[in-house]
């Protein structure tokens, strides 16, 4: 067997090993994460989890919303 082939086979074992190691650890971590979340941060009914973005969102995006709202109010007074 050539040296190239042996490094290929070594690579295969290392590679599949790491892929399995990685994804197996991911399984454990996900289970842990889900457990912690479901226990300590259970999803409240309805939409309560949604961050009140509209209130303190970015200066860039909420421009439109703000200005639209403002213009409406402004126009409605004219």
């Amino acid at each position, binding site marked *: 067997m050539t040296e190239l082939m042996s490094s290929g086979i070594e690579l295969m074992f290392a590679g599949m090993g*790491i892929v399995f190691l990685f994804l197996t650890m991911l399984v454990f971590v996900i289970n842990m994460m889900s457990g912690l979340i479901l226990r300590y941060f259970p999803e409240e009914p309805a939409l309560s989890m949604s*961050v009140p*973005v509209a*209130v303190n969102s*970015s*200066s*860039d*995006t909420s421009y439109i919303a703000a*200005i639209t709202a*403002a213009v409406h109010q402004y126009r409605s007074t004219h």
Partner: protein
Amino acid sequence: MENLISLWQSTGIYNFTAGQAFMMLIGFLLLFLAIKKGFEPLLLLPIGFGAILSNIPVAGISEEGGILYFLYYGIKLGIFPLLIFMGVGAMTDFGPMLANPKTLLLGAAAQVGIFASLIGALALNVIPGLEFTLKDAAAIGIIGGADGPTAIYVASKLAPDLLGAIAVAAYSYMALVPLIQPPIMRALTTEAERKIEMQQLRHVSKTEKIIFPLTLLLLSILLLPSATPLVGMFAFGNLMNACGVVERLSQTAQNELINIVTIFLGLAVGSKLSAEAFLQFKTLGILALGAIAFAIGTASGVMMAKLMNRFSDTPINPLIGAAGVSAVPMAARVANKIGLESNPHNFLLMHAMGPNVAGVIGSAVAAGVLLSLIK
């Protein structure tokens, strides 16, 4: 076996430095603030993620050959902040300001925050270990402008090493405007002042809105050409929107284009949050000075409004002076909210939009001064 050792030596665990780990925590903190606290998520989420990516050992994502290295060119060449400013210009309605132009002076007054923190940065040099140059101080001061693209543009020209800290400070304090401003506004005004109702704004014609960005640009050309990259791109965006004949370009500038550039700019800013640059005593100074800049800017705006009330026959509610720092439209909303507390029938939002957008112009002018006078 060799492979395994080589793999182990290429893991993150093996290669982590304390600084990288700490910066990654900062990145996660920014993500937390963005997602859970709603702190300027459009910018702080990409910045936070960029900070994490660029501090990964071995991967070299922000080193030559990595994607963040290439994206950073958009900031280094000044392209990204200017394109964002163009989009912001397209989103801005100058109507309220044109209806009541003297609110521009509130936008001027609030810029005191910039220069006060510049002086503050220089004063901090007395502390051993801190050494801010004039360029550093100017870049720090611009945090007080409360305008992301302006701050990033100026910092990338004057003090690229401080860019990460400055951008983070600028966007964080913008997000904190609802906490920073109200106590200052309440402290400097009487209940009677906060109750002042303002005259209804007149209708502003389309022609005025078309001519205004050109007027602004012209004045900037004549007086302060160094501000024209910023003012010019802003005016261009605003004209595209106001003129009504290039609707599809205006829409793209304020939607897809600004979104794409925001993603890239955020990641690229994050790539400047490296341990060497950020984990310095300087950064604490920057954060402190940024807070001072916002506070002083707010106070100056309010005081200017009170001063103008002395000389003007049409009443000005001093609360709208606080909106002069820009941080559009949050500062205007804060003014509206505090006003409603004193007088539930007093909607200040449109009145506060005048100084609010004036503040954007004011900081661009201040940026022009800094870029022109500091060599």
